[in-house]
Structure formats: C-alpha cells, structure tokens
C-alpha cells in the first residue's frame, strides 16, 4: 500500500535529517579541532517497488580538495625546512655579535689592531704591551666562544634530528596502524572518515619532517614514499634510526665511510629488512630533517671553517718565516741548497722551475706530512691553484726525502740529493738544459719567541705551535678557532712582543716586531682556502685578514638574510594554500547554522508528511 510506503519514505527522510543534524553537531563541535575535515552526508534515493522511493545516507563525505592537500603537504615540508633554517641562521647571526657592539667579532679584531698600533708607537710601554696581550686574549677567547657556539648549534641540530626521527617514527607507526584498521572494513562511515582525518594529520606531521609522496590505493589505503621513492609506510611502517653523538666538536663530521663518521647518521630499516642510509643516498631534500642535516653538515661546518681559516691565517701570518735556498753549482748543474732541519710537520718548500722545452714555469710545493694515513695529498692541499703538491715523509731522514722526490719527479729532470746533514740539494739537468731551477724557499713555523727575527709564535694551538699539519681527519686547521690561544710564554714575558733577539739584545724601543705584527694582521695579503666557502679552488680568495673577516660576516649576513627571505616567501605560499584548503575543508559555523535551519525545515516537512499520512490513515480507518 502506497501510504505505508509514503510513511516509510518520510521515516527515511527523518532518519537522514537526524544523521544530517548529528553531522552538523559534529562539525560545529570540531570546528577548531586540528586536522578535522568538514563532513557532509551523501544522500541517495532508494527505490523499492514501483512507487517506493526513500532516502538514505550512503556515505559520509569529507570535504577535501586532494590536489590542494597534496600541494599543501609539499609546501608544508618547504615551510618547515625554510622556517627551521631561518631560525638556525638567526641564531648563527648572534654568534657574530651585534654589529658594531663591543662584543662583536669585528670589534675584537679592530681592538687588537688598535692595540698593536699603540704598541708600534710605544714599543717600550708596559701598558701598550699589556694592551696588546689582553686584546689578543679577548680575540682568541672570542674565536673560542664563537667556535663553541657554532658547535653548540651543530649539537642542537644533532639532537633536533634525533627528536625529529622519533616524531617521524611515531607518525609512521600511526599511519600504518590506521591503514590496517581501514583495511579491515571497506566502509565509508563516520568512523572511517575520522580515522582518515587522523591519518591525514599524521601524514601532515611527517610532511613537516621530510619531503614525502603519498599514493592512495584501494580500500582507503595510502602508501607513503620519500620523494626519492623509498617506501616509508604501507601496511607496515619502516623504522628510522639515528645515533646521536653526545658532544659535538669541529672534527666530528659525517662521512660515507662508517669508520670515519663521528656524527649520527639516518638509517631507514625497511619492514622487510635492509638498511638504507638516507644521508648517503641524499634521500631527504626538504622538511625539518633536511634543514637539520644542512645545518649540521654544511652551513655550520662552513661557518666553523671560516673561523678556522681566520685563526690559522692569523697564527701563520705571525709565525711563518721564509727561508730562501742558497744558490749552488755542481759542475754544469745549477740549483739551490736548503736546510730542512727546522721544517715542521705541515711546513712546506716551494720550488719554482722552468721547463725549457715548453718555456713554462712550474711550481712544486713539497709538504712535510707525518701522518701516513693522510697520503697522498691532492694538489688542492694548498691554496695555490697552480702548484703541484708533493707530500714528504721525513721519518727516513733527508736522504730518504731526496729519493722520494727523485721517484715522484722523475719526468721533470730535476735532481734531488742530500749532500750533508739536513740539507736538500735541488739541481737542474746541467748541460742538457731541459730544465732550470728558478727559486727555492721554505716556509717554516717559528717556535722560539726570540729567534732572531720578527716572526714569533704569537698564537698557539692550545700549547703547541700551529704548523698547518695535515692529517687524515682534515688537519690541524679543523676546529683551530676553538683552540687558538695566545702563547703562554708571551703572556708570562710581554717584553717578547718587542725583543726578538737576545744577543745583541733588542732595544726596548725597537718597533721592528710590533710593526711586523701590525702589518701582517692589517695589510698583508694571503690566499684563503676555499673550504671556507669563500673563493673557489681555481681562484682562492686573496686579501688581508680584515678583508677576510669582512667577507665572512658579509657572506653569513647574506645567507641569513636569504634564509629569512625564503622563510617569509614560503610562509606566504603556505598560508595562502592553507587558506584555500580551509575554505573547502574547515567548518564554517555560519554555513552549518544555515544547514541546521534547512534540516530543521526538512525535519518539520517530513514530520508534516507523516502527520498528513496519519490523518489520511485515520480517515481511511474511520470509513
């Protein structure tokens, strides 16, 4: 009978209205719940028999624009990458101090220079000497503390990574768990919808940590990959692991070789076994983890290298003296003798010769290397882009050095020998005249405070001379800014700032040494190693120490400014996307209220239908 049918239809209408009401209630209640996506019922007509038409809620729809959601996730990775990077750069800026303030690095250096100017004017003045030493101490302490700050930041990045890995693992576990729950029931009811909400939120969290790709499968399943294509989550979650190092030092660096790696690395353990080193594979390009890695392994390492380069140049500028070779002729062969007795580990001899066949001048740099693990040295071991670097093992004495050189430089026709003692003799080929030796000079680190020349070991590596020794873990320069100190001997005897020889005793008013120190620090030009990120291997930055400091500060300021700009730009993109996403997905209370009115009306109408049917039935029954 069609009346009963109509009643049934009205009831189905009431049921749908109630469902709609409960969704409005849910939407309003969750208006501010993070990750909540507005739900709407999907109504379908049900036909039964010829006339019977009813309605039912077929599914709960999540008002979601998947295209925007995907884009939002990409930008969310980018935003958290840019945000974290900007935050680190900002903290790094603090290391260099407030521009122009007394505590800034440049002020410390300028103060040192001014104190040296005063010493040049009054070499005999005790207070001028004390002034130089105290400002030098301040400068070294500044370098030490800047170095410690940078390593502190690296340590923060290391712990940040550990924390991010924990959060990523939590999110991945949760995604896998929800995937499994949704897999069992292929329904699209409210439970399913809210589980999907939760899963999306977990994926969003993961997207903040790293750049991911999400692929939707059947049965409400999603699979998450890194953007490089390694699967992170399916039914099972992969496990990320990270082994943080307790204390961070400048020498602690990431290396593809696990034996030489002294910081934590990021390993992905797949659900089916198999470990993948995500850093070695360069699998992560965005998100917090990428920002932490970039900071820990590049930006901060480079910032440290810049300070190290400044510290090393300061030390060597004052301590390195040049020992020129003595011309010597043997028969028809001409060349030079050079005494290598005081050549220290890391010191070098520069040989310039002309190849007469091609009329080109070549430069050889012979470097003393005591750590066999560091061999062989590349030509980039020195800042000079045009030289050929030859490492020398001094353990067998100079005779062995000569034979090492003869073996390495057979083609050049140069002849090396050890005529006596610690002398190295470098000769051309005599009458054949295929090659001529132009000059030989050694650069030797002075270790004595009064060694007879203006050079002095003003700055030490803690308590040993800084010679620029090269070792397998990078060499003495790595982290030198954290260890540089004013020579304790100088602090104990400030007169050595002036007295460079004891017989005859340098007069107290002799400005030779103060002038030398000032000139080296203020005016002399040096080649700076490109590891600092300033200058290139083929064209190293050449300039004075103040210019290098200016470059470093400018370079860091630029980078920090660019990072802040990137963050702002990324924030704009991210926020506008979020706005668009919200427009479709978030709850608009006004809209819900309007729906409520609609539902109320519909409910009243349905009820009206029912009461009419009842009246009609009553009429029928009364007949």
């Amino acid at each position, binding site marked *: 009978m069609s009346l009963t049918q109509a009643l049934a239809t009205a009831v189905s209408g009431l049921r749908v209205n109630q469902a709609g009401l409960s969704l409005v209630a849910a939407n309003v209640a969750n208006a501010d719940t993070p990750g909540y996506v507005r739900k709407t019922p999907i109504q379908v007509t049900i036909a039964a028999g010829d006339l019977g038409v009813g309605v039912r809620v077929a599914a709960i729809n999540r008002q979601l624009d998947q295209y925007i959601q995907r884009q939002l996730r990409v930008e969310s990775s980018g935003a958290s990458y840019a945000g974290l990077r900007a935050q680190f750069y900002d903290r790094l800026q603090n290391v260099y101090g407030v521009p122009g303030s007394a505590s800034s690095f440049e002020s410390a250096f300028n103060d040192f220079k001014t104190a040296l100017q005063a010493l040049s004017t009054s070499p005999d*003045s005790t207070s001028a000497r004390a002034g130089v030493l105290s400002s030098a101490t301040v400068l070294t302490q500044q370098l030490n503390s800047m170095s410690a700050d940078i390593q502190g930041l690296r340590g923060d990045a290391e712990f940040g990574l550990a924390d991010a890995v924990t959060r990523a693992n939590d999110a991945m576990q949760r995604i896998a768990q929800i995937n499994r729950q949704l897999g069992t029931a292929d329904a699209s009811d409210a439970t399913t919808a809210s589980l999907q909400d939760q899963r999306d939120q977990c994926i969003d969290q993961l997207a903040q940590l790293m750049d991911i790709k999400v692929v939707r499968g059947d049965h409400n399943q999603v699979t998450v990959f890194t953007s490089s294509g390694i699967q992170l989550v399916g039914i099972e979650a992969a496990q990320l692991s990270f082994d943080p190092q307790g204390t961070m030092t400048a020498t602690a660096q990431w290396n593809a070789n696990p034996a030489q790696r002294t910081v934590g690395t990021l390993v992905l353990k797949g659900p089916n076994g198999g470990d993948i080193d995500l850093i070695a594979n360069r699998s992560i390009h965005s998100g917090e983890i990428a920002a932490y890695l970039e900071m820990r392994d590049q930006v901060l390492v480079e910032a440290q290298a810049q300070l190290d380069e400044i510290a090393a140049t300061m030390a060597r500028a004052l301590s390195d003296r040049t020992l020129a070779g003595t011309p010597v002729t043997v028969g028809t062969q001409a060349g030079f003798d050079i005494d290598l007795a005081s050549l220290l580990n890391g010191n070098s001899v520069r040989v310039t010769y002309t190849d007469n066949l091609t009329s080109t001048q070549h430069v050889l740099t012979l470097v003393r290397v005591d750590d066999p693990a560091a061999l062989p040295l590349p030509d980039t071991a020195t800042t000079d882009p045009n030289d050929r670097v030859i490492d020398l093992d001094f353990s067998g004495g100079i005779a062995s050095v000569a034979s090492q050189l003869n073996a390495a430089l057979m083609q050049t026709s140069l002849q090396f020998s050890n005529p006596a003692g610690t002398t190295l003799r470098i000769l051309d080929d005599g009458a054949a005249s295929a090659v001529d030796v132009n000059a030989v000079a050694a650069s030797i680190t002075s270790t004595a405070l009064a060694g007879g020349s203006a050079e002095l070991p003003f700055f030490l590596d803690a308590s040993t001379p800084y010679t620029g020794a090269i070792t397998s873990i990078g060499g003495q320069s790595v982290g030198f800014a954290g260890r540089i100190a004013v020579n304790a001997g100088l602090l104990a005897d400030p007169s050595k700032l002036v007295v460079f020889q004891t017989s005859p005793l340098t007069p107290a*008013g002799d400005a030779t040494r103060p002038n030398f120190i000032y000139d080296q620090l203020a005016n002399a030009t040096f080649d700076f190693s490109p590891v600092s990120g300033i200058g290139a291997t083929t064209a190293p930055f050449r300039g004075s120490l103040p210019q290098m400091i200016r470059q470093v500060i400018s370079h*860091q300021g630029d980078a920090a400014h660019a990072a802040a700009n990137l963050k702002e730009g990324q924030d704009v993109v991210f926020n506008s996307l979020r706005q668009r996403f919200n427009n479709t997905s*978030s709850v608009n209370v006004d809209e819900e209220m309007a729906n409520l009115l609609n539902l109320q009306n519909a409910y009243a109408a349905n009820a009206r239908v029912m009461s009419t049917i009842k009246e009609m039935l009553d009429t029928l029954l009364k007949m």
Partner: protein
Amino acid sequence: MSISGIGSQTSLIVQSLVDTRRQLDDLQRQLGTGKKADTYAGLGLDRGLAVGLRAHVASLGGFDNAITNVGVRINLAQVALGRISDITHQIKAATLQPGAIDSNGSTNAQLNAYLELGELLGLLNTQAGDRYLFSGRSTDQPAVETLDHVMNGDGARAGLKQITAERKQADLGANGLGRLLITAPTPFSVRLREDVVSPFGLKLAGVTSNLANATVTPSGPPTGTTVDLTAGNPNDGDTIEYRFTLPDGSTESITLTATTSANPGPNQFAIGATSDLTAGNLLTALTAAVGKLAATSLTAASAVAAAGDFFNVDAGQPPQRVAAPPFDTATAFVAGTPADTVTWYTGEMGADPARATATASVDTSITVSYGLRANEQGLRWVVQNVAALAAMTFSQSDPNAAERSAALNQRIGTALAVPAGTQKVEDIEGELAGAQTTLSAASDRHRQTKATLSDMLEQIEGISNEEVASTILAMQTRLQASLQTTALLFQTSLVRYL
C-alpha cells in the same frame, strides 16, 4: 612558525596579528637603539661595507692615538733642542770674552760651561712619560751618563778629565815640546823632528826658509827637517817659518827672525860671529818657541781632541784612549772598554739614521720618523765642545795660562759656530718640525675622513627617527583596525542571531 594542523582557521588570523605585533616591537627597538638591525643579516646589502667602514674608523682611532702620543714626544724634544741651541749660543758668546782665572783655576766661561754641560746632559735625558727621547731605540734607558761620571769618571772607569790629562801627556811628551826633538846634529845645523811616528803631538807640516846661506833638508819618517848653516850666516831680518798641524786639526806656525840685535826678542835669534854660533842661537830660540806653542795652543788643541776621542762614540766605535802607560811616549790609540772608560752615551747606537729609530704610522702609508740619539753629530758636537771647555784647568801661577785659555776659547768659539756641511742642532729641529707638520696634516685629514665614514656608517646602520616613528604610527593604526575587525568578525556569526 607553529603549525598546529590543518583546519584551525582562527590560528591564521592570530598569526597575522602576531606578525604585525612583532614588526611593531622591532620598530620600537629601532627607535630605542637607533640601529636598523641587531644582526648583520638585517643590515642589508651594505653589511660588508659597514664592517669595512668600522675597521677603517677603528684604524683612524689608532692613528689618532699615535698622533697624540708622538705629538707630545716631538714637542718635548723640540723644547729640549731649543734650549740646547740657546746654550750653544750662550757658550759661544762667553768664549769671546777673555776671562780672568779664579782661585780654582777656572775662567768665567768655564764655570758657565760646566753648569751648562750639566743642563745639556739633563736635556738629553728628557723623558716623555717613561720614554727617553734621545736614546735611539733604547727608550727605556737614559741617553747619557751623569755630569759627574762624564767629567770625573766612575770608580775604575775614566771620565773626560782623565782622558784629557792622558792625551795631554801624550801630546806634550816628556820634554814638553809636543813630542818634537830639537837637536844639533852638527855644530852648524839645527834639526827638528817628531820623536816617533805617532798621532800625538805637533806634526811638522812644512818649513819655509828665506835664510841666506841656509840649506833646509827634510827627513823622515819620523818627519823632520834640518837647517844647515855651514855656508854662512843669514842676513838680518831673514826668517824661517815652521808650520805645525795640531791634534785638533788646526794649524799654527812659528816664525823665527834672524836679528843682529844683542837682545833678541821672542821668536828672534841673534846672528852670531860665526854661523855655528848662529845655529846655536836658532836652536835655543826654536826650543823656546816650540815650548811656548806646546804649553798654549797645543795643550788647548789636545784638550779639544781628547774631548773628540771621548765623545765621538757609536756602534763599533768606542771611546779612544792613549795606549799607555807610559803616556808621554805613546804611539797609538787604544779603544776604551766599558770596564775602564765611561761611555757618555748610554742609548742605542747604530749605523742607521737616528730619525729612523722611532717611527709612527700616522696614516695608512704615511710614517713619521722622529727618533733621536744624543750621539748624533749635531748634539754630540755641542756637548763635546762645551765639555772640552769645562774640563780644562789653569793655574794662576802659570805664565801661559791666559794664552792657553785664549787658545781654548778661540777653538771652542769657532767650533760652536758649527762648520758648514755638518749637522747642526737647528737641522734636527727642522726635521722634527717637518714631522710635526705631517702629524697635524694627518690629524686634520683623519678628522674629515672620520666624519665622512661615520656619516656613511650611520646611513647603513642607522635609522631615520621620523621614518620609524611614522611607520610605528601607521602600523599601530593598522593593528588597531585589524584587531577591531577581527573582533567584529568573531562577533558576526549566525549563532548570535538564531
């Protein structure tokens, strides 16, 4: 940035309010500190320039300190040099007036010289702060010894007076004839010759004779000359002139005139009946004249030379003494050692110019040299001559005292006029004045440069108060409007109207 999750609409609005508020706070900081940013990142593109400018300003500060310090030093040195110059003129004036010899054996000029020598030494020990200005590089050591040590020595170390006395013995010789032997090799001849080859005493420079019948034959070394009168007597009025070089480089001559007078005056010799008698007379006259020359000019010249030996010290050039005893037959000098001779100059010695012993950079590539050494030619010359004058003693009973004093006065007076071509005190003053000019020019330049640099630095790092204040005002208005709108937005909800 806090991302609480997708879907919280309100956080977006709040975020933008917080951002505005943060900008407002930063503007307030700018207004408070007057600085555009508190990190290098915030300074903008000119951050590198700012660092460079500040380094430049700092180095200008260093140069200015140097200029101030060096300026004081040069001023003090100029005052001392001015006074030394005055003393030179005073002593020179005093030597022009013949003075009586007092009971202590000194003339007025000498007493004056002694006092002024004390002042000279004091002036040469002038200090600027703890720095001795006339010690070359040894600025922590006095430049010169005390007056007492210089004149009288110090224990075993001989002073000027002893050196002068020794030199006097060496120059005069045992016979008081300036190390000359005057003999008669034959009855008809007179021979004058130096006793040995030595740097001491009178040096025979030449003999000019117009004595008739005389044969003059030079001999030596040791340099000598023989006048032979075997051929006969000279005529009345004929002369013979002996020229001598004295230890101080001056020359004197003795001219003896033949006379027929029975009582020949000084520098005359009687023509005898035979030429052998004449030769005897010539011998006597020559001996007397040489003795007189030795007691007067030679003694004075010896004192001047001794002062030169004593004061002319430098690197590798110690004070010179007579190699002795015995002094009166000495033939050579010996270098005084720190143990036996006072070295009046105690500062740093060197072959390089004295001015180069103290230099100051007053600009990037401008260096001022202002070092001084008390043993510089110009300064030493004054001290040496004043000391020579002060060291001599006379005896009232000595008949030659007045002449000797005159000889000394004349020599010192001439010397203090400073021979052309040698350094004068005024030359040193002039050089320092040049340095002072450089200093003041540099100082002026620095003041201008500093002003320009500070201006540029201010443009990079500073803020315009007006701009910041108006921005704050604008932002405040915007924030208020934004807050009100937000409030309004939250109020206008359908919920309130149902």
